[in-house]
């Protein structure tokens, strides 16, 4: 703690740190620094062992940096970091590097279908070219949400990885890894991962019946919930479970749902030379 900040209220400390840091930033017009701010800057310089004669850019940057760190610690104490991280994960605004990527044995067991190594999946998520996090509705707490990642693998490849993850707080659980070859999926029709998953489902997906409508893929479908608070069967496709959450008495919101026909997809991989022993 800098001496100048001792015995001050939290709001005074923040105010003083903010004023001092602002005073060191480039300004289009000169600003007047009051005595308290000058004392704080002098205090910071002493702590950093900067000589009084040193007025260089580098020394100014060091002071600025220290003030920024002190402000950060006030705005986001260490004890609150994890909760904030989770909250950002739920919202889908967390930088990708900040998620925990969970190994999914179920996905790896389907190796003969998806034909993706764990390292491919990790690379596609961590170095994705395009990312799309779905937020179903506000107020769902930690309900699972969907996140999609698209990655053009380095080298002379003619496909994109499309990774579909389940997102819970700050955790990502990869559910599917798809290869979208250029000769089958036109880049003109695909601008976002959402377009990519729609194209994939249209090509290889089974028909879903949702709310009396037939579709290949369901996004943010709000359907009447006949029994408030209870799950309802929305889909009559076998072996398909919807991610869904009750949002009150009136409706049931489903997340991203689709089902790809294994046979059609693996035949397509075979045609592109990605055989079972790839």
């Amino acid at each position, binding site marked *: 703690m800098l001496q100048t900040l001792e015995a001050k209220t939290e709001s005074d400390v923040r105010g003083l740190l*903010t004023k001092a*840091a602002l005073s060191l*930033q*480039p300004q289009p017009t000169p600003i007047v620094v009051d005595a308290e701010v000058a004392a704080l800057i002098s205090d910071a310089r002493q702590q950093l062992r900067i000589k009084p004669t040193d007025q260089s850019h580098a020394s100014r*940057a060091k002071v600025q940096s220290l003030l*920024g760190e002190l*402000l950060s610690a*006030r705005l*986001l104490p260490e004890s609150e970091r994890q909760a904030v991280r989770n909250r950002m994960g739920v919202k889908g605004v967390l*930088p990708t590097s900040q998620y925990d990527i969970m190994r999914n044995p179920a996905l790896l067991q389907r190796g003969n279908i998806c034909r993706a190594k764990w390292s491919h999946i990790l690379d596609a998520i961590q170095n994705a070219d395009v990312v799309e996090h779905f937020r179903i509705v506000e107020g769902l707490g930690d309900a699972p949400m969907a996140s999609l990642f698209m990655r053009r693998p380095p080298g002379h490849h003619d496909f994109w990885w499309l990774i579909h993850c389940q997102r819970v707080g700050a955790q990502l659980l990869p559910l599917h890894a798809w290869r979208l070859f250029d000769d089958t999926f036109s880049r003109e029709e695909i601008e976002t991962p959402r377009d990519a998953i729609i194209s994939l489902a249209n090509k290889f997906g089974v028909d879903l019946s949702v709310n009396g409508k037939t579709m290949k893929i369901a996004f943010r479908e709000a359907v009447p919930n006949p029994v408030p608070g209870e799950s309802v069967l929305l889909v009559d496709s076998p072996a398909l479970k919807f991610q869904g959450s009750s949002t009150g008495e009136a409706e049931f919101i489903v997340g991203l749902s689709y089902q790809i026909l294994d046979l059609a997809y693996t035949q397509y991989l075979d045609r592109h030379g990605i055989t079972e022993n790839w």
Partner: protein
Amino acid sequence: MTTMPGPFLFSAMPYMKFYIYRTYRNDIHYVWCSEVYDHSSTLVPRTSLPSPPSSDPADICRQVRHAIDRRDRHDHRLTGWKTILITRVAAWEADGSLDPADAQELVFMLNSDDFQIWRPLLYVIHRSAIDPGRIHSVPPAQRAGFGREFVIEDLAGSEFEPLEI
């Protein structure tokens, strides 16, 4: 000597700053800009005066790209941008114009090890579309060099093109 103003203004900014102003400041941006994109190229207005690398948009973009590629946490430009944005967040939170929860999330992002949030964007501003009264000339004493510099405090998102370079 009277000089004709250049048709464009250029500003180099980190993506994170663009994101914050677009999302939390009603898409109204504060920019410090120059009439010349790259003082080291031959395509500069005849009347322009040289600027040092610290205020040359092309140089800033090059330096920042280099720092990101090397994942240099101590790069002065990146640490400077980070501190400036943390300070702004603190000031907005204090004056009530930013929700405390949003402030915490921004501080988390600014302190994360994700270098991509610092990737440089080049703002290209069509000068003729901006009321000249909003373009404030920076006094010579406050500039980094001889070249003319300007500040626009209320640049709307629709008034410039943010280019990834």
